[in-house]
């Protein structure tokens, strides 16, 4: 623990003040999902669970569980694809004598910085050509490809922080390169794996653009698109509290994951482990 040579109190006070409007808005977001307020009033006058009816009554907004399922599939696929490919690819880039390694590294950086939106039309044509348009597989492949540069780059940082001697010692002890990777190196980068796994899950869960454009079919709707469609139709008597309830439903897993993994998520920005 570092010793502080200045008081943190003014800083905390300032931050509280600045984030107060946000807090108020979040407060009402939660509050409004379980209450009703008279028209034109700010404060609710009665408690109700009516806005949560969408959970089991498909007549309200359609099948929210199917959308949640789709989102879950997308998020989990992201996690699996990004984790499995990043751990192996990053190791190869960090430790093996690959031909064109520098070019490959540069390519990853460029891809990482490239705005994905500009690729959309091209991607659309490719998917259409291969018959993967309007399918979950297509969305997963495209989203995965766009996320991989980030994952590989992050994992490379973690691998780079593992001392060479551990690898040399493992090889001297008679272990194959693969055994060394699996039993000696992988455990050293575990913090990175955890963080990257959560991160890619959250990224998949929050993705809106790609499923919206590449898989517009109703049975492929993910939660983000589902939520958007609630306000897309210009029907009369728009139910704001219902919209907020679905929003909270959509956000809950994110908040939960973040609470559980917040310390380990910060690892990604630390760039590696020590010791």
């Amino acid at each position, binding site marked *: 623990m570092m010793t502080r040579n200045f008081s943190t109190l003014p800083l905390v006070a300032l931050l509280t003040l600045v984030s107060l409007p946000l807090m108020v808005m979040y407060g009402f977001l939660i509050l409004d999902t379980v209450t009703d307020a008279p028209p034109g009033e700010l404060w609710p006058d009665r408690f109700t669970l009516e806005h949560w009816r969408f959970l089991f009554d498909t007549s309200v907004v359609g099948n929210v569980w199917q959308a949640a399922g789709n989102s879950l599939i997308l998020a989990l696929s992201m996690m699996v694809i990004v984790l499995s490919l990043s751990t192996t690819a990053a190791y190869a880039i960090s430790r093996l004598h690959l031909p064109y390694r520098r070019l490959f590294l540069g390519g990853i950086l460029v891809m990482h910085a490239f705005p994905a939106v500009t690729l959309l039309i091209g991607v659309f044509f490719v998917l259409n050509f291969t018959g993967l348009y309007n399918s979950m597989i297509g969305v997963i492949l495209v989203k995965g490809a766009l996320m991989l540069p980030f994952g590989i780059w992050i994992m490379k940082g973690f691998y780079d922080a593992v*001392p060479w*001697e551990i690898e*040399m*010692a493992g*090889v*001297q002890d*008679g*272990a194959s390169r693969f055994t060394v990777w699996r039993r000696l190196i992988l*455990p*050293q980068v575990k913090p990175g794996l955890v963080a990257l796994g959560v991160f890619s899950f959250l990224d998949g869960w929050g993705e809106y653009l790609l499923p919206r454009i590449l898989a517009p079919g109703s049975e492929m709707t993910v939660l983000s698109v589902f939520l958007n469609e609630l306000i897309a139709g210009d029907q009369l008597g728009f139910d704001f509290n219902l919209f907020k309830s679905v929003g909270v439903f959509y956000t809950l897993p994110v908040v939960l994951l973040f609470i559980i993994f917040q310390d380990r998520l910060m690892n990604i920005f630390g760039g590696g482990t020590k010791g």
Partner: protein
Amino acid sequence: MQLHLDNFTKRFDGTAVIENLDLTVNDGEMLALLGPSGCGKSTTLLSIAGIYRADGGRILFGDRDVSNLPSQRRNVGVVFQNYALYPHMSVEENIAFPLTVGKKRPSAEEVTRRVRETAELVHIEELMARKPAQLSGGQQQRVALARAIVRRPDVLLLDEPLANLDAKLRLEMRSEIRRIQLETGITAILVTHDQVEAMSMCDRVAIMNKGEILQIDAPTQMYRAPASRFVAGFLGNPPIVFLDGQTGPAGRFEMAEGLSLPLPSRLAGMPEGQPIALGLRPEHYGAGGGASAAGRVVFVEPQGREMLFDVEAAPGIVLRSIQPVRDDVGIGDRVDWPVDTERLLAFDSEGRTL
């Protein structure tokens, strides 16, 4: 097992770091590769380990040519400078690791038995459940040693094993490593830049510079009769003092700065006017001998049991003397101390010992 390097050559990007090196380490012997950094000693070590591939020549373990074998199949134990323990494994798992990989795996009981045996040998039985981060430097060193010898390697390689320890532990581990090497009888190579380590731990010392072995000898022999000026300068603490001058009349040595000493009797017949250098070790100045050198004390360094004196014998020429502690001499005093001329080392202009 005897280790033999035959015409060994190693290049990096076309530049030869080591060329045509020959080296034999006898069965059960501990040999030190001693030299300044960049002299090729670590390259040699890593090539024996198989981490570097030789670019020429052969590496033989006994009769087995291992030059083209990968590290995994060479059966070499290595202790790295930073120990390279596996941080996520306990001490027991660390030591057992070499036994649980590879083709022939002993049974679980056999593994436990050998791990315990090795742990007892290096005195870490009571630390088996700990993680490396919970160990002191010396304990980590012992674990690294245990892991390197648990597989009963043909050759044990030690890469600057004591460099990361504090002075007191270094002393302790020096004798410990030697004891373990003697008990196991494994042929060992120690790479170090510390002459004290090399001399105190090893049967023979090989001094390297610029990819070449300059001299291989038993430590005492090498200290007494170095083959060259470089070797003489590398061994000895406090170091030897070199005096550059030339032979004068009547078997004397003269320096342009004004200092004159008789040559050792074995060199008395040298012709006049030859450029030579004399090497005077601190213990041979001020402790008896046939000649004397006078000067002014410019620096005194008490070391507890002994005292080190710097004596300016001529302008710019400082002689070193190490003597039992004495209070009668201080900075600025003039002294006239004996020089043991018979033990002076002499080198020609190329640095070869005369």
